[in-house]
């Protein structure tokens, strides 16, 4: 099992970096090219949700993402440290106010994209684990 861990400050600009890292590692793990876009989008949705949760509740805490090559599956876990399970993915305007028309589409999108999804809300934050099939002899094995 090979694991990469990434923590980043809860800023929207860093979500793109997380997407790029996840896509690169998915490719290296042997995830099929045809589903790399799904990985990129699902990881981005989970990270966006976590960033907004942190900005509302604990802006100083970093968001954590683990990327794991686990027995023929590529598994991603995004963990936030925001209390409560009522956080919706939202966009903040330049003045810091919430954009009113954003619905909770993020989790629905993840559920539609990931092969296997587990959403684990908890008092100290939410954990979203998702996985996709990967080649058992992905590049990471060499």
């Amino acid at each position: 099992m090979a694991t990469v861990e990434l923590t980043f400050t809860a800023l929207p600009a860093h979500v793109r970096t997380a997407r790029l890292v996840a896509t690169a590692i998915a490719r290296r793990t042997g995830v099929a090219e045809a589903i790399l876009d799904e990985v990129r989008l699902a990881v981005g949705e989970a990270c966006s949700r976590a960033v907004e949760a942190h900005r509302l509740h604990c802006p100083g805490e970093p968001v954590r993402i683990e990327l794991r090559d686990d027995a023929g599956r590529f598994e991603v876990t995004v963990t936030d440290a925001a209390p409560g399970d009522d956080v919706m993915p939202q966009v903040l305007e330049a003045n810091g106010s919430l954009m009113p028309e954003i619905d909770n589409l993020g989790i629905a999108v993840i559920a539609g994209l990931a092969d296997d999804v587990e959403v684990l809300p908890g008092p100290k934050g939410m954990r979203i684990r998702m996985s996709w099939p990967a080649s058992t002899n992905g590049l990471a094995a060499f």
Partner: protein
Amino acid sequence: MDLKLDHHSEDNLTIVDVEGEIDVYTAPRLRELLIDLVNKGNFHLLVNMEKVDFLDSTGLGVLVGGLKRVRAHDGSLELVCTQERILKIFRITGLTKVFGIYASVEEAKEAHGRDK
């Protein structure tokens, strides 16, 4: 890639050209542009997404918000998009039934002309 936005008007249709990635970081800029256009009386918008590399749910939310605003003025917000990876997120969320989605700007303009 960052987000590039441009717009121009043809007859009573305002075409918004979007290039790059629409995500939690860049979506507020698109939202500001759509609000500005509506505030200036542009109620028929066509968002050309042919050069969009990435779209997430925050981007979808901005488009839905724009649609709500133009509909309040009996307007329209339609899209040009042929990229499967972008269309997929519209299908997953059921928004293909909400937006008119065209294969080209010309096709959308023709449809808009018929509806006038």
